[in-house]
């Protein structure tokens, strides 16, 4: 089991962090998706191709590397279709027809994945119909991957027969769309191997870890400069002890994310339990820390101008992204054969 990032992984982290600090700091997140930044992220850093196998033009890296990158994109609340494209890449690497991966690796194609349970059917000619009430980055993505029957299909989101409507999202930094397919042309990619949902859970947990860490860093920084009653607020135990507890959550969340990423790369037997654990623990911890970070900021934390609510809302949106969190807990109960 590998719980400590390697030298190369630390270098990857530093490169992504430096790039984002300049190109997409949290202050920019509320302006939404910037296609130019997204293109550079994929071009200069090759992030969209990180987990794409080398034969499709990607870096062929594993989840340990992906997790490090997602922590950094999470920490700055990167807007746009990066996570959605990661989700799609995860599905494609497990589908028989992987051609689309080449476009993703090049950064030419932004993709998204309909979450499991979508009610979509294919007709005799392979055209798809059905309604997807919430598609992550559905307005920014070019291609939608969706399961109909037992096969995965790719739908060009600009094609005829596709209607997409942006949703008003609580998290203003990253969009969702309602997508209606009405005889939309699609290409079938075959029946994917299982384990996609587990890998999505791990990828999301890595983003959540980044959100958690940044929310904690923000309030720790503020507690060192904000004064009340003649003292820095961080010197009061009511604040300090809460921050210490938040740090404990960070340490445990990071340990779980490293473990789950390792399981995704090297220990398929452990992956289901690790993935459910990652969502059950990290999703909750991320929201709790974002919430307490906001509260400890005082009144300024409740303002629209301050970033605290952006973290709070991303944390909540992420916590419920893969379904109500009780599903992850129920999964753990099943795996433990309780």
């Amino acid at each position, binding site marked *: *089991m*590998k*719980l*400590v990032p390697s030298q190369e992984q630390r270098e990857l982290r530093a490169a992504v962090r430096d790039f984002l600090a300049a190109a997409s700091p949290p202050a920019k997140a509320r302006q939404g998706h910037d296609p130019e930044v997204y293109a550079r992220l994929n071009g200069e850093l090759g992030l969209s191709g990180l987990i794409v196998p080398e034969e499709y033009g990607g870096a062929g890296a594993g989840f340990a590397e992906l997790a490090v990158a997602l922590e950094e994109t999470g920490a700055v609340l990167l807007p746009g279709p990066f996570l959605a494209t990661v989700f799609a890449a995860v599905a494609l690497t497990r589908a028989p027809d992987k051609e689309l991966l080449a476009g993703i690796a090049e950064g030419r194609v932004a993709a998204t994945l309909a979450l499991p349970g979508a009610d979509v059917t294919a007709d005799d000619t392979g055209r798809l119909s059905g309604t997807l009430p919430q598609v992550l980055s559905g307005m920014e993505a070019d291609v939608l991957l969706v399961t109909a029957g037992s096969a995965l299909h790719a739908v060009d989101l600009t094609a005829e027969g596709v209607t997409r409507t942006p949703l008003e999202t609580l998290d203003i930094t990253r969009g969702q769309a309602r997508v209606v397919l009405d005889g939309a042309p699609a290409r079938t990619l075959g029946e994917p191997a299982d384990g996609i949902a587990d890998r999505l859970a791990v990828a999301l947990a890595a983003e959540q870890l980044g959100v958690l860490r940044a929310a904690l860093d923000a309030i*720790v920084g503020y*507690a*060192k400069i904000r004064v009340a009653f003649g*003292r*820095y607020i*961080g*010197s*009061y*135990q009511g604040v*300090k*002890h809460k*921050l*210490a*507890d938040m*740090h*404990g959550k960070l*340490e*445990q*969340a*990071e*340990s*779980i994310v*490293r*473990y789950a990423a390792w399981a995704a790369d090297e220990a398929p037997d452990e992956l289901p339990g690790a993935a459910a*654990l990652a969502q*059950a*623990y990290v999703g909750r911890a991320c929201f709790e820390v974002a919430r307490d970070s906001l509260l400890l900021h005082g009144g300024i934390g409740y303002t629209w101008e301050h970033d605290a609510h952006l973290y709070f809302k991303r944390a909540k949106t992420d916590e419920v992204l893969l379904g109500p969190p009780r599903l992850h*807990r129920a999964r*753990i*109960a099943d795996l*433990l054969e*309780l």
Partner: protein
Amino acid sequence: MNPADYQRAARDWLERNVPSEGRADGDPIAQAKDFMARLYDAGYSGITWPERWGGQGLTQEEERAFAAAARDFTLPIYVFSIGLGMTGPTLVDRGTDAQRERFVRPLLRGEEIWCQLFSEPGAGSDVASLQTRAERDGDDWIVNGQKVWTSVAQHADWGLLLARTNVDVPKHKGLTMFVVDMHHPGVTVRPLKDMSGRSNFNEIFFDDVHIPDEHRVGDVDDGWSVAVTTLLHERLSISAGVGMGGQKDNPASLEALRRTVDTSDPLVRDELVELHIRSRALALFNQRLAQETEAGVFPGARGSAAKLLLAELTLYQADLATRLAGPESVVGGHPLGTVLSTAPGLALGGGTNEIMRNIVGDRVLNLPPEPRVDKTVPFKDLKVGTQA
């Protein structure tokens, strides 16, 4: 040997050598010493300690492999936990070569039992305000005073003693660390009954106890920096479970609970899932700290976060288990009653939860310190202990 082989060999050895329950007829201390000697001779005591002083000189990888093998056994080594987890590592880090030569091997082989004499009636969290005096007398030091809450002292041969050697300087600057012979005349050990009814800790009285200067650890008046070393090891060893049984015999473990409670009830299932989540989260954190240590990153004050989380998990687990078991858990000496009664110990011993939070806040997050009224005051002018 690769870790998997090492673990297999250790498991084999433990299967053949760990005394099974029911054989505990004779003197438990003699049995523990006998087991410890065999453990040492088999190469499983002091796995990562320097070879020169009697350790095995191996890496965290073997240590982890051994811990994994030991998880399914309850090793009868509780009485050595202070020596293995705290005083021994302190001597390895800070002792003289003569002290390491004299003390480390017998400690690892279980020939001598150690205790840690820091806390006093007037000084626990604020241990630097302690009042036990050590005064120079030629080549010796003469100790007078009282210690309390001293675990396993009733069995101990040696103690690591923190005493005041200078009252004219601020409290942290007038302390010195010693090794004291617990069999020396003038040392009186009185067992105290704890809330579980057992007697694992003691109060100790020192009346003109002589300590030779070669048993001083570190410089005169520099005992605080030695104590900090001990306390760091203490937190790490507690969170890593040195000398503690695995979860195997814990009646509040998930494995035990699932056999006794109704897991078809979704509310019960969810409680057990929560226990699983919290236990795994902490276990993985401890494993990560161990891997970092191996990679050369010393966890330092982050060990206090692990200790705090373990204390909270222990209280939560005991509380949960008794709630799930219901009325029977509180009568007739039910094992869960004992689990509940011993749970607070971990949140007090080795530094309270509040102190752990202070440490994480101050030294991990580098938050501004609290205003202090005691930092610059000479000890003799300081208010300490319990005062009306």
